[in-house]
């Protein structure tokens, strides 16, 4: 029978207020660690096989700095941050603008990657099976691009909800969790840029 009130003392006054971190943030942090572990192995493969390809083409010959794509992707981190702050201040219009800009910039990045790959395949003859450089380059950049794509899909859904007028201030924490994922994807790109395009060449 219910005699819980007598047996489990609730003296909340003696203890400080019980505040725990938000689930979404912790969950996303865990996911980011797990994904980072996967990416690190692809980075290791890339670095390990630098200089070991038996035949060309070689990185210095065919890689050009992807300035345009990088600027787009890194700016998109600012726009998504802008969208989250706007939503927190209940500025629904700015939130939609921020999300739309993020999706646009992300898509431009993907288009830039596609353009780069087209030239690598058709003009330079570099495919995933050409040599070790091809193998490790396409797999690493491709894995990243896949994550960008997944992020864009999620952001587009958020944009759709926002444009339909159904995004509220109460959702700001969820949007922030999504933005964490997007920042992670950007962070990976910074690493790719440095390892593949700067150091690796």
């Amino acid at each position, binding site marked *: 029978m219910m005699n819980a009130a007598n047996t489990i003392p609730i003296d909340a006054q003696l*203890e400080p207020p019980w505040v725990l*971190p938000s*689930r979404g943030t912790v969950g996303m942090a865990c996911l980011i*660690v797990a*994904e980072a572990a996967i990416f690190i*192995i692809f980075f290791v493969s890339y670095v390990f096989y630098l200089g070991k390809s038996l035949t060309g083409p070689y990185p210095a010959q065919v890689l050009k700095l992807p300035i345009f794509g990088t600027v787009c992707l890194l700016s998109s981190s600012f726009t998504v941050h802008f969208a989250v702050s706007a939503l927190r201040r209940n500025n629904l219009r700015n939130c939609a603008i921020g999300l739309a800009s993020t999706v646009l910039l992300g898509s431009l990045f993907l288009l830039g990657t596609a353009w780069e790959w087209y030239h690598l395949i058709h003009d330079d003859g570099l495919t*995933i*099976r050409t040599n070790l450089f091809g193998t490790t380059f396409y797999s690493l950049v491709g894995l990243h691009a896949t994550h960008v794509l997944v992020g864009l899909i999620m952001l587009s859904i958020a944009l759709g909800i926002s444009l339909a007028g159904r995004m509220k201030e109460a959702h700001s924490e969820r949007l922030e969790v999504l933005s964490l994922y997007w920042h992670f994807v950007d962070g990976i790109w910074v690493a790719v840029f440095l390892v593949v395009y700067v150091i690796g060449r």
Partner: protein
Amino acid sequence: MADSTPVMEGIDHSLAVKRPRLEVIYEWITTVDHKKIGLMYVGYALLFLVIGGFEALLMRIQLAVPNNHFVSPEVFNRLFTMHGTTMVFFMGMPMLFGFGNYLVPLMIGARDMAFPRLNAFSFWISAFGGLLLYFSYFGGSGLYGAGSAPDVGWFAYAPLTAKAFSPGHSTDYWTLAVFLSGIGSIGTALNIVTTIICMRCKGMKMSRLPLLVWLYLVMSSMVFIAVGPLTAAQIMLTLDRYVGSHFFDTQAGGSAVLWMHYFWIFGHPEVYILVLPAFAFINEIVPVFSRKAIFGYPAMVAASIAIGFISLSVWAHHMFTVGLGPAGNTFFVFATMVISVPTGIKIFNWLATIWGGSIHFAVPMMFCIGFLFQFLIAGLTGIMLSVAPFDWQLSASYFVVAHFHYVLVGAIVFALFGAFYYWYPKVTGRMMSETLGKWHFWLFLIGFHLTFDFMHVPGLLGMPRRIYTYEAGRGWEGWNLIVSIGAIFQVAGIACFVFNLVRSYFRGKIADHDPWDAWTLEWATSSPPPSYNFAIEPTVHSRRPLWDLKHPEDPDSDYE
């Protein structure tokens, strides 16, 4: 024993309406309740325990005498691959995640896991992975009839797994099944970590977490770091096999050793992921049956975290024979030896918990005692293996097989059996039979020691592993026969266990909410718990909330 704890809410089950079978099945398939998902994980793992055990039995029959013809080499090679893959990914992981799923929310006073739907998804995708692995027996045919179940060993070394050496799809079934299991593992681990950090009841500071919860926290954190490398390596392997990439293609300058590194960067933490929950069970059961608080709680937490970290740095002790060079070998010798320090601390703490207590030899405690002796021995043979030159002889021999089965069976499975007997009353509301439990224990203990003690000897006499038969005259015959005979006793023990599980569900003595006079929160609710776990969120003031309630004159909160 002290006064029993007042129950939070009594439930009158006689009022329950008998529901149609289909409705019950539908409820289980669509459930997001952590308790039901936990039970599905455990049931699933039990099924694979029996299947994997059967595979082992067939292998032992083949190896009982030299030049035996019980199974062909192809079948034997599939058996050891499937046995290892099944036991690690479809028995060990689901079983331990099942217990974690059931117990963690209850022990922290929470209503469910942080992400119930992710929980269900993780279970079903792991389950699908297991089915896919076994479907390979039917669906794996490929070129030249060289298909069927995978036969590349559970660690699937390159380039044996390349398309050239493993035509057909058998390797792909391995890759995909384990890949899906990995996704499920990451999902559940994510859930466990988030639940522990974000859903503790009032007053349950991190320093008051039950040690089981701490260990699941560390284990789940390790899953994030360890499973990724395997997933990445499997993506690379599949790209090699289908798209023509060269990650592990030695003809194109690729490296076979790279696969080994990636696999063992996963593989070594994986075995600690498997053993940490075993420690968790011991940490809960031994104090209760010694009637003493665990000795050195802060050191136990620190040791667990240390083991978690250090285990990420020891992987190449599986590669001492690869030719890493003296500097590389020396580093990994050091890291592996260092991990014995926190592990030893745990054993000493358990010894100190028992010391000065009042030991009750109920069946759960008997299994824990088996664990203590056997884990000690397993750790010591591990130290032998950490000595790289000694490992140059022992690696890839039956000594290693004996060592890791000593940990996996002697430590982890024994701890699991203890956990089953201990928490069965909570889950079902009935006690398991002590008599059958004792039969189970002694039969399995005899079988375990016959098999795995004597298995060390052929290794020392030069018998490598993964051989479908061996030459007579090498001095291995008698030992292998004894090893095989032990398997029969283990089968008998498991049979007792399964019978006990089923029979007790219908005929077991009714258990009240706290049959063992224990001290953690799961014993404060009814047996079985209601779907919402606790009617009112509990507030705790120490590590053993029920001890405080039972001993208001001498609560733990005075000492911590």
